[in-house]
């Protein structure tokens, strides 16, 4: 077990190192840097000014030096400065994390509390009209772009209340907090709930076909006891993996949803930074995303071993 964990941790570091290199190189092959954008906007170009600014931002150095500078800083907890606001990148990123984390947590909660029960019902009632209806709902959940769902919610709120929910970092009332966090979280969570439901359903169906379920039925256990006591306990295992898949899935949904609802979280910040070619922000945010995904997946694998005593990582 210990050897396995160590091996996994080393692989995680290799993955993160690979991502850092890929992102760094990708951002540097972009034609035009922030200096070009600024000078284009200003309308005139004095080559000396431009060269000065590039030197100031360290853009005149070789790509290897720039990379080592970034990684060295990262290891010391120094993420560099945002080109746009000229504030430390850490100062720009940190306050936005709780907003996105709250949204993601709520969305995950919705996803599990809607997806798992509906997936179980769908599997237990396999082949019935209810199953068909639930499957169509879950497929349509996977087909609706979450930004469109967000726009539809905004539209509904305009026609019902005559206004749109506007983000406020310190909501005064419960209903305001609900509108600010739960509504966007529902827009993102719907898609994840659909995914959770599908995986729960197929995992549950596979379990229901197994011999020990037949045995349980043969000895006279009630339908309810078979479904919820015998089957669900084992079917829930693969669903844990969903949380891992969901993490990556949710981040994509959060990017567009934060944009629709105008929420100043990290996900929308990434899009803004990409538009502005604000490299220090982009590369640090992409690294943050990768760390979250890798750590969540690692945790899920470990959780697996805890929940299912049959799984032992000996390799």
């Amino acid at each position, binding site marked *: 077990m210990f050897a396995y964990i160590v091996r996994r941790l080393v692989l995680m570091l290799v993955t993160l190192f690979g991502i850092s290199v890929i992102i760094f190189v990708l*951002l540097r092959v972009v034609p035009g840097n922030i200096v070009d954008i600024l000078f284009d906007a200003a309308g005139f170009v004095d080559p000396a000014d431009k060269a000065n600014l590039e030197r100031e931002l360290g853009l005149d150095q070789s790509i290897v030096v720039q990379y080592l500078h970034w990684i060295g800083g990262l290891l010391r907890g120094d993420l560099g400065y945002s080109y746009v606001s000229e504030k430390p990148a850490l100062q720009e990123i940190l306050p936005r994390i709780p907003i996105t984390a709250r949204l993601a947590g709520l969305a995950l909660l919705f996803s599990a509390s809607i997806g798992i029960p509906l997936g179980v019902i769908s599997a237990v009632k396999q082949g019935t009209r209810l199953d068909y209806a639930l499957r169509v709902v879950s497929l349509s959940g996977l087909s609706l772009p979450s930004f469109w769902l967000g*726009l*539809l919610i905004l539209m509904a709120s*305009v026609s019902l209340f005559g206004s749109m929910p506007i983000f406020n970092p310190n909501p005064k009332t419960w209903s305001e907090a609900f509108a600010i966090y739960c509504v966007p979280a529902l827009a993102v969570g719907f898609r994840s709930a659909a995914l959770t439901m599908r995986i729960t359903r197929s995992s549950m169906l596979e379990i229901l076909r197994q011999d020990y379920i037949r045995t349980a039925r043969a000895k006279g256990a009630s339908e309810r006891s078979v479904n919820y006591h015998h089957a669900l306990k084992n079917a829930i295992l693969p669903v844990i993996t969903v949380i891992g898949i969901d993490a990556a899935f949710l981040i*994509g949904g959060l*990017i567009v949803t934060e*944009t629709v609802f105008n929420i100043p979280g990290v996900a929308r910040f*990434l899009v803004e930074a990409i538009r502005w070619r604000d490299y220090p922000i*982009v590369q640090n945010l992409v690294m943050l995303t*990768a760390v979250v995904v890798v750590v969540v997946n690692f945790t899920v694998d470990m959780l697996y071993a805890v929940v299912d005593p049959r799984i032992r990582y000996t390799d």
Partner: protein
Amino acid sequence: MATINYDTELRRAGAHSTHGWRKLVFLAQRHVLGAFGLVIMVIFVLVALFADVISRFDPLSVDSLHRLAAPSAQHWMGTDSFGRDVWSRIIHGARISLAVGIGSTALGSSIGVMVGLASGYLSGWVDLVFQRITDILQALPLLVLALVMTAALGPSLPNVIIAIAIPLIPIVARVVRANTLALRELPFIEAAKSIGMSEMRIALRHVLPNTLAPLIVLSTAQFGSTILTEASLSFLGLGIPEPYPSWGRMLSESAAEYVRVAPWLVIFPGVAISLAVFGTNLFGDALRDVLDPRQRG
């Protein structure tokens, strides 16, 4: 080469005839939802192919006299802030979605197949290197990787196709590799080896055809997500550039402003994206049930 005999399978399932279109009718009756999905997909492709014939206006022509006009007999889905006909733009938008869907799925799948085959069949250090690269690519969400890619390559149709294809490679490679590893141990591969067939030939003639079924299933599933990713990229303003009528672009950030004054600008492009993706998902599910019964849910 071992393959599944679908006709025997069909007879066992109760089909009276396995000839021509009756086979199709039988399958459609058993998979109503899949057949419905196929119909949506066919309509989607036809609309894209005959966009010039069906559309009533030039999707790019600006008409300042009819800005933000509500749906009417003349403009079925209204007009946008430049006075462009929404119906015509949606019809032409199908071309972009289809091009991105086919282009990136084909590109991502073909590279993924090569990587997966090489990784699973050659094993050793090739496998090790490819595995690490797939790990790296999979540690980033599809949309994040595609966002950075389009930012690096610049916004244009071919670049969007490449940006969406690259994140697909590891997904396809994983599936093909797993299949190849399982197939390598089977007797017919050993038989091929024992009669002196070259490794390359075994990989291409025996292993590859047997991974086709899961590959087709996976590609259909990915097709819908490529359309969604393009829509998201264009929605964020980093995908297909103006004035081309991409569905996502039509819903771009400014859409929130139109929620009040011109709801048709929000509703119709969203319906188009959802329907196209829904159709491919329905069809993909049915295809999985038919071609890859082991995964049947």
